[in-house]
C-alpha cells in the first residue's frame, strides 16, 4: 500500500505539487491523470525519491521512503519512463538483467527470470535476447522497458506515460497486454498518462490532478458519473456512454462460436449448422478466417465462400475493452468480431448487439443524470469551483 500525506514540491516560486494526499491499496492500479504540467511526473518521481518532496510524507507499506537509501529503494520499485531509456550498448537480455545485477543476484538466478519476463511481454527470448535496442521497433523497446521494470519482481511499479510514444494500434495491444500481465502479477501500479481513455481502460482508481492539486481520487465509474467539479466533468469528456464502454471487457459479453479446421464442403456445411457464419482455424485452433454459410449453400466451393484474415488485425482479445471492439467493428464494417487469446486461438466472438445491450443500460443511467444535477453534486470542499460556476 502506498500512502501520500500532504505531499508538496516547490521549485522556488513554482509549486509543482501542492499538498497531495491519497492512498493506493496493494494490487491496485492507480492512474495519475491531468493536463500537461499539472505535477503528475513530479508526484510519481517523489515516490522513488528521484525528486525529494519539500514537505509531507510518503509511505510504502507503512515505511517512510525517506528512511531508506534512495538506491536501495529504487531497486525494489519498478520504473518505466515514457522515453523508455534502454541502455543502447547492452543487449535486450542485459538491459532486462540490470536490476538483478544491481541487487547482486547470481547469473543462474536471474537468467531464467529474464527469459521468462521477455516471454511474458511477448518478445520470444530466442529471437530477441541478443538484439540491441536500436534493432527494435518503438513498441518492442517499450516492452523491454516493462520487462526490465518487472524482472526483480518489485511489488510496486511506477510507469510514466509508458505507452505514450507508440502508434495507436500498438498502444492498444500494449494496454491489453498490460491488463493481462497485471491480472497475473497483481502489482501495485501507479501509472501516469494524459489519455483519458487509457486511464479508464486500465485504472482501478483515477487520481485527477490540476495545477499541483488533486481534484478527485476515485474509481473511473465515479469520475464519470459523479464528477467532483466542472473541471473533472469537462476533463473526462462528453462522450460518457462511449467512455463507459472503455470499462467493460469483451470477456464479459462474448459468446462461444462454431469453428472448423475447414476441408471438405460437407464438413464445413455441417459446422455451419443453422448459423450464418462459421470460423475457420488451423489444427492448433488459431483463427484463419471464416466462411459465409449462405454463400456456401448457394453452391460456391468452401475456398471461395471463405474470407482469410490475419488475427493480429481482424480479432480482439478477451481483455480488449468494448470500446475498442466497437471501433474495430466500425472500422471493418462487420456486426461481429472474433475473439482470440494471446496466441491467436479462437475463443469466441462478440456482436454489435451485445455491445448495444450494455450501452442501453448505460444510457438509462445517464438519462437520470441531468446536467444540473451533476453540477449540483459538487461537494462543499471545493468553493473555488462553485464561484467559477455561479
Amino acid at each position, binding site marked *: 500500500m502506498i500512502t501520500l500525506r500532504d505531499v508538496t514540491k516547490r521549485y522556488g516560486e513554482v509549486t509543482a505539487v501542492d499538498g497531495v494526499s491519497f492512498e493506493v491499496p496493494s494490487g491496485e492500479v492507480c492512474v495519475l491523470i491531468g493536463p500537461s504540467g499539472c505535477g503528475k511526473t513530479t508526484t510519481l518521481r517523489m515516490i522513488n525519491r528521484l525528486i525529494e518532496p519539500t514537505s509531507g510524507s510518503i509511505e510504502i507499506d507503512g515505511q517512510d521512503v525517506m528512511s531508506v537509501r534512495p538506491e536501495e*529503494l529504487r531497486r525494489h520499485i519498478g520504473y518505466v*519512463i515514457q522515453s523508455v*531509456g*534502454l541502455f543502447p550498448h547492452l543487449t535486450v537480455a542485459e538491459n532486462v538483467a540490470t*536490476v538483478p545485477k544491481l541487487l547482486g543476484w547470481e547469473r543462474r538466478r536471474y537468467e531464467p527470470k529474464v527469459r521468462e519476463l521477455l516471454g511474458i511481454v511477448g518478445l520470444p527470448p530466442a529471437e530477441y535476447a541478443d538484439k*540491441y535496442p*536500436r534493432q527494435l521497433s518503438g513498441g518492442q523497446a517499450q516492452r523491454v522497458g516493462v520487462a*526490465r521494470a518487472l524482472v526483480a519482481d518489485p511489488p510496486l511499479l511506477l510507469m510514466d506515460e509508458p505507452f505514450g510514444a507508440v502508434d495507436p494500434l500498438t498502444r492498444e495491444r500494449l494496454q491489453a497486454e498490460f491488463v493481462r500481465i497485471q491480472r497475473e502479477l497483481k502489482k501495485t501500479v501507479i501509472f501516469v498518462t494524459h489519455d483519458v481513455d487509457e486511464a479508464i481502460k486500465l485504472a482501478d482508481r483515477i487520481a485527477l490532478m490540476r495545477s499541483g492539486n488533486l481534484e478527485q481520487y476515485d474509481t473511473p465509474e465515479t469520475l464519470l458519473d459523479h464528477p467532483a467539479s466542472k473541471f473533472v466533468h469537462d476533463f473526462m469528456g462528453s462522450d460518457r456512454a462511449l467512455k463507459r464502454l472503455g470499462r467493460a471487457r469483451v470477456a464479459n459479453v462474448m459468446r462461444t462460436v462454431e469453428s472448423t479446421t475447414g476441408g471438405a464442403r460437407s464438413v464445413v456445411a455441417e459446422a455451419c449448422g443453422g448459423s450464418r457464419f462459421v470460423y475457420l482455424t488451423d489444427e492448433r485452433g488459431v483463427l484463419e478466417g471464416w466462411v459465409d454459410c449462405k454463400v456456401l449453400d448457394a453452391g460456391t466451393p468452401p475456398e471461395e465462400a471463405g474470407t482469410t484474415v490475419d488475427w493480429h488485425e481482424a480479432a480482439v482479445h478477451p481483455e480488449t475493452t468494448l470500446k475498442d471492439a466497437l471501433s474495430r467493428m466500425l472500422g471493418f464494417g462487420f456486426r461481429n468480431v472474433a475473439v482470440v487469446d494471446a496466441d491467436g486461438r479462437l475463443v469466441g466472438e462478440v456482436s454489435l448487439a451485445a455491445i448495444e445491450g450494455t450501452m442501453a443500460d448505460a444510457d438509462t443511467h445517464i438519462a437520470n443524470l441531468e446536467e444540473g444535477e451533476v453540477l449540483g453534486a459538487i461537494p462543499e470542499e471545493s468553493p473555488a469551483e462553485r464561484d467559477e460556476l455561479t
Partner: protein
Amino acid sequence: MVALAGCLLLPFVEFRPNRIVSGTFETVFVAGVASWALVALIALALVVALAPGRVRGSLLLVAGAGMGLALLWALGVAAVHLQEGAPAIVRVSVGPGAWLVGLGALIVWFAGTRATASVLVRRIAGVAVLLGVAAIAMWGGLGELSLAREYAVQSRRFWTLVRQHLVLAGTGVGFGVLIGIPLGVAASRNRVVRDAGLGIASVIQTIPSMAMLGLLIAPLAALGLTAIGTTPAVIALTLYALLPIMRNTFVGLAGVDAAVIDAGRGMGMGRLQLLLRVEAPLALPLVIEGVRAAAVLVIGIAAVTAFIGAGGLGILVFQGWGQQADDLTLLGAIPMVVLAVLADVSMRGLRRLVVSPGIEEGTLT
C-alpha cells in the same frame, strides 16, 4: 593524371657522386620493364577513375596497389642499374617524380578503399600489398637506394631513436589519458571545471611547440628542474595530449541521452555505477577518438623535443637538415609518419574491439 605527368616529365631518380652533393637526374625509363608496368598501371587508374562501374572500387584498389608496388620495383631496378660498376660512395636518391607517383598511388588506393563496400576485398588487397612490399624489399634492389644506405649506416642508432620516440610520445599520451579523462569527467559534472579546463587546454593547444618548450623554462626552474632533457619534453607532450582527450571525454559524457541516465538512476544505480556501467561505455567511442587524435598529434610534436635533448627521431631530421643530407632527414621523417599511421590504425582497431556493437555504426544489420 598528376601522377602520370610526374612520372613522365619530372626526374624519377637522382644520381649523385656522393651522399651530400647534388647530381644528375634520370627519368623513369632507366628502370626498363618496370617503368612500363608503372605507366600502364597509372593509365589503368585513370581509365577506372573516369568510368564508374560496379567493380570500380576493386579496380581502383588493384590500380593503386599496383602503382605503389611498380614504383618500388622501378626504384629498385633504377638504383641497381645506375650503380652498376660505380664506386660504393655513389648514391641514388628518390626524385620528385617518384614521390608524385607515390602520392598518386596513395590517392588511388584510398579512393579504392572508400568505393569498396566489401571488407573481405579490402582485407585481401591489404594483405596482397604487404606481401608485395615484402617481396620487393627482399629481392628488388631497394637496398641500393640512398635511403637504405643511410639506414645501413645508422641502423643501431635508428632503432634506439625509434624507441625513444615511442617512449616519449607514449608517455605523453599516457599522462594525457591519466589526467585528461578524469578532467573530462569532472568537466561533465561541474561547470567551473568545464569552462576553466577546456579554456586552458585550448589555449595550450594554440601555443606553437617551440614556444612551449621555451615557456616551460621558467616554471621548471622554479621547481628546481632544468628545461633540458626528457622531463620537460614529456610535460610538453602531456599538455598537448590533454585537450583532445579531455574535450572528447567531456563531449562523450555530455552526449549521453538524458533518458538513459534517468532510467539508470530510476533503477537504483549510484553515481559511480551510473558512470562505469552506463556513461563510460556510451562515451567510449569519443574518448578513444580523442586518444587517437592525441597520439597522432604527439608523435608529430615529439620530433621537436629533439631540440631540448630528449632524443627521438627528430634528431635524424635535424641532423639531416644540418648536413643537407636529405636522405638522413627522410630516414627520420618516414618512420614518424609510419608511427603516426600505426597509432591511428591501432586505435581504430581498439575501438572496434571494445565499443559495444549496439552503439557502433555499421556493425549491426
